[in-house]
């Protein structure tokens, strides 16, 4: 080395590096490293909100993880580099092996030296009398090896017959390893020239922009067409579980409706190279009618009409309601903490934030129907209130009254009035106040009072201790709705996909060749001598030795039997 001119060391170094990169040890190491790296990404949830990570790991680890890109690990430069390295390694190994293999498959060398014969996995030898008809032996060899390819030659007076089966086995290797390259290239093409993102289209509206995650930010992309959602619907199993989510979509290209189709979860729509998938759904701005129960003691009730995602403001009091969501079904666990879960549908509910001068903002989930207990007992209307705005902090507040019944609201006010007049609250005065309130609302004829007025009394009493405590000047309750969904679509275009499918087919095909069509070679060597003929049967298989051992043994016994009589 020391004497070599400088210029030559470098190419040599490069050559040995190239070989080392294509070595199988490196392949094993790369596979193991990739596996370990992939584990990290499955343990650490990917692509969550940054705030969640910060909360979960604390500032220090958050910054360490973030700078390593662990929150979007599979797209970091270092992960890509490992994949790139694998591609280089595969290329190198294919580059070096393919010419050799192609040559081996084409030319089959027939004569074998005695020395290499000794090194075969399987070898058997006979000695037959010199006058044995070796033609017959050769025929038998041909006959027992049906479907094999034969080639023979003479050398130094010895006769060699070579038989091959699965001669094309090395194509399996070539296909499998190039397939991995093809798949990786396909993946890269898709990443580079394709897109994938989400779009929310309310019923009756159109949209043409998708959102997607780009590292830690959100990217936007305009589509070459508009998607119009005509309708969205959910179908249920008899058990109440959702069975099908369906959107009826119209594609609008340059202002013209070109295609209308239903899509469901496993059946996307395909237009101009873009696939449109049903991914999710949500509220698309349902029409909401509130009944506002004024808590100023007047007993006034007014209505307000608005929509989800809108803010409605009461001009007089300055109270504003910002609507976040509406759901027609609200299945909640109604069991006490620690008890077995008991799921129950509480009916339609709207979620809004209430704000106003001098008021602490609160998030409220207001249900349309009163809560009905397990025995069908009406327990009055209710709300869920969260002062922090967080779902976990929802507290259920029973209002006592069934606010869907206007009489109860009137009864409550009448009761408050009489209760206020009776100074000292005793059992008797309360009962008296209730009686008078009932007479105000339902008339003095007791026979005409509602049958369940006792339950009504209980509710009214409960309301007396709750309603005056509420900080808001009015109580907005859900009175009516007309639901509109939005359909959550995923739009994707992947020009690399067909390359990936091609690679996949090559992979499976190649694996089948590699594993199930092993290359087997048998040699019959006939060496005539003066006293006896020396016969060798040698065999070599590159895979599945158990079967080949048995096969070789069978061939040997058959030939042996055929010529047993002639043995010396």
């Amino acid at each position, binding site marked *: 080395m020391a004497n070599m001119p400088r210029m030559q060391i470098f190419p040599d170094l490069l050559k040995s590096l190239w070989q080392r990169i294509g070595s199988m040890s490196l392949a094993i190491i790369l596979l193991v490293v990739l596996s370990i790296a992939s584990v990290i*990404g499955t343990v650490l949830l990917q692509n969550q909100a940054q705030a969640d990570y910060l909360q979960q790991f604390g500032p220090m680890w958050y910054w360490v993880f973030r700078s390593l890109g662990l929150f979007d690990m599979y797209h970091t430069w270092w992960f890509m580099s490992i994949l790139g390295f694998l591609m280089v390694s595969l290329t190198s190994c294919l580059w070096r092996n393919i010419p050799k293999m192609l040559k081996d498959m084409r030319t089959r060398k027939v004569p074998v030296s005695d020395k290499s014969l000794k090194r075969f996995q399987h070898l058997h030898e006979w000695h037959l009398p010199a006058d044995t008809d070796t033609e017959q032996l050769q025929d038998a060899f041909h006959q027992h090896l*049906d479907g094999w390819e034969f080639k023979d030659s003479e050398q130094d007076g010895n006769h060699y017959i070579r038989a091959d089966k699965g001669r094309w086995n090395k194509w399996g290797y070539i296909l499998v390893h190039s397939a991995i390259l093809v798949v990786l290239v396909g993946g890269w093409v898709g990443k580079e020239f394709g897109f994938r993102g989400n779009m929310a289209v309310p019923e009756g509206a159109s949209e043409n922009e998708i959102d997607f995650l780009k590292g830690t930010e959100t990217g936007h992309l305009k589509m070459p067409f508009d998607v119009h959602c005509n309708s969205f619907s959910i179908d249920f199993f008899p058990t109440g*579980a*959702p*069975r099908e989510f369906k959107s009826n979509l119209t594609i609008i290209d340059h202002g013209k409706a070109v295609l209308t189709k239903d899509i469901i*979860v496993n059946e996307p729509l395909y237009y101009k190279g873009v696939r449109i998938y049903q991914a999710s759904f949500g509220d698309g701005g349902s029409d909401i009618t509130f009944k506002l129960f004024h808590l100023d003691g007047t007993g006034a009730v007014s209505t307000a009409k608005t929509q989800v995602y809108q803010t409605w403001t009461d001009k007089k009091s300055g109270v504003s309601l910002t609507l976040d969501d509406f759901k027609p079904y609200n299945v909640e666990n109604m069991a006490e903490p620690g008890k077995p879960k008991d799921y129950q549908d509480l009916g339609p509910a709207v979620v809004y934030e209430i704000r106003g001068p001098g008021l602490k903002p609160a998030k409220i989930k207001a249900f349309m129907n009163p809560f009905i207990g397990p025995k069908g007992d009406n327990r009055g209307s209710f709300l869920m209130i969260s002062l922090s705005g967080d779902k976990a902090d929802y507290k259920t507040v029973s209002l006592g009254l069934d606010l869907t019944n206007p009489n109860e609201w009137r009864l409550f006010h009448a009761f408050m009035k009489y209760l206020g007049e009776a100074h000292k609250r005793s059992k008797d005065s309360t009962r008296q106040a209730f009686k008078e309130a009932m007479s105000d609302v339902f008339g003095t004829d007791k026979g005409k009072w509602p049958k369940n007025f006792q339950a009504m009394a209980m509710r009214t009493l409960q309301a007396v201790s709750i309603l005056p405590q509420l900080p808001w000047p009015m109580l907005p309750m859900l009175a009516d709705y007309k639901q509109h969904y939005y359909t959550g679509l995923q*739009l994707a275009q992947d020009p690399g996909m067909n390359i*990936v499918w091609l690679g996949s087919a090559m992979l499976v095909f190649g694996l*089948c060749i590699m594993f199930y069509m092993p290359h087997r070679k048998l040699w019959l060597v006939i060496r005539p001598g003066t006293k006896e003929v020396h016969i060798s049967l040698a065999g070599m298989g590159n895979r599945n030795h158990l079967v080949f051992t048995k096969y070789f043994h069978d061939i040997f016994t058959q030939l042996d039997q055929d010529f047993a009589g002639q043995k010396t």
Partner: protein
Amino acid sequence: MTAITAGGGFTATLYRSRWVFLRFAAYLGAMAGIAAMARFGTGAYEENAFLYQILSMKGLIWGGTGALAGCGMAIVASTAKPKLMDAKMARNFVPWLDGFVLMVILAAIWALFEPAADQISYDDQSNLFAGRVIMAMNVIFIFSSVSYIAYLFAPESFIGRIATWSAYAGLYLGGSSLLLRWHESYLFDMEIGHAPVSNLYEVFILLCCVTTAIYLALEKRYQAKAMGAFVLTLVSAAVFFDIWLASVGQADIKPLVPALQSYWMKIHVPMNFVGYGSFAVACGAGMAYLVRFRLEANGGTSKMLKIFPSLDQLDQLAYKAVAIGFPAFTLATILGAAWASEAWGGYWSWDPKETWALIVWMTYGAYLHARVSHGWHGKALAWWAVAGFLVTVFCFLGVNMYLSGLHSYGRLS
């Protein structure tokens, strides 16, 4: 893969090359016929009623025509080239298909014991017959593993035969119970019906059956009975897990969430379990290797050594199992990607389950390379086969239990 191994007159005829060849052609034809029905038939493929589409008159006509056409072509082909009748492919595949037909017949018989229609309720599924067949399977698999272990210590051919026969019995009970369960899912409501590969409980039964079937095929070909103690013990572990699942109420038939309502599920999931099952068998071979290695190191006087395959054979058996599993698992992963591209908008999303499938694949890829390249052999590879299966177990169980993702079908609640 069938229980019929004895050389009696009828079965010998059944397994003459000519009949095997003809049957193979008929099976292939029938499958092609059913596939053609799903693709081109009137009403085509009906996700909610596929089982009954096959079992209806229409299915019979399409499948039967296919089978006849297959036979016809086979006869023409074999007159032209009689050697075809010795085709190895037919001899390798027909026993499996025969076994499947037997399972279908068994399931049809079990269906007669189903409770009356007015006794069947979605809320209480305990009176369905499949549950009993599964219980019988559980007991028999455990019995079989005990027999295989007994065989190690008392290598009487009689005990060995009992072990093998009970493994076959468990396999047929398990396979037919799954088919029966498919039928039962339709008894509640046609819309609920779906193939029995939709939750952990069902796929564990599938896993037990696939593992046993692959093991038995190897046992038959390579007389590797000592390995059964290890493989069937793994199967018994799965059986115990399934019993636990049933005890926490995970055994009920539930309707499918929209994402799983696809014919892909019927192909993707079973194919995956062919992979998992083979890897379990490879793990059994690896364990047998390590035990034999220990026994030999201890002086090699143990009686057990006589019935153990040699180290080299065990090494080859592990390889053989991986050679079945690796292509199957590769195909299953590709099918999964195809499904994902159809249902979720991308063939690969680095979802934890997908990623773990890739990890498993790379683990066995590395195993195969380690075999070929010098330096790695014997004990190290046996450990690799065992460790590889641990990775596999995490992939089909751990991911569902500990990691979140789109493959929520197996979630324990």
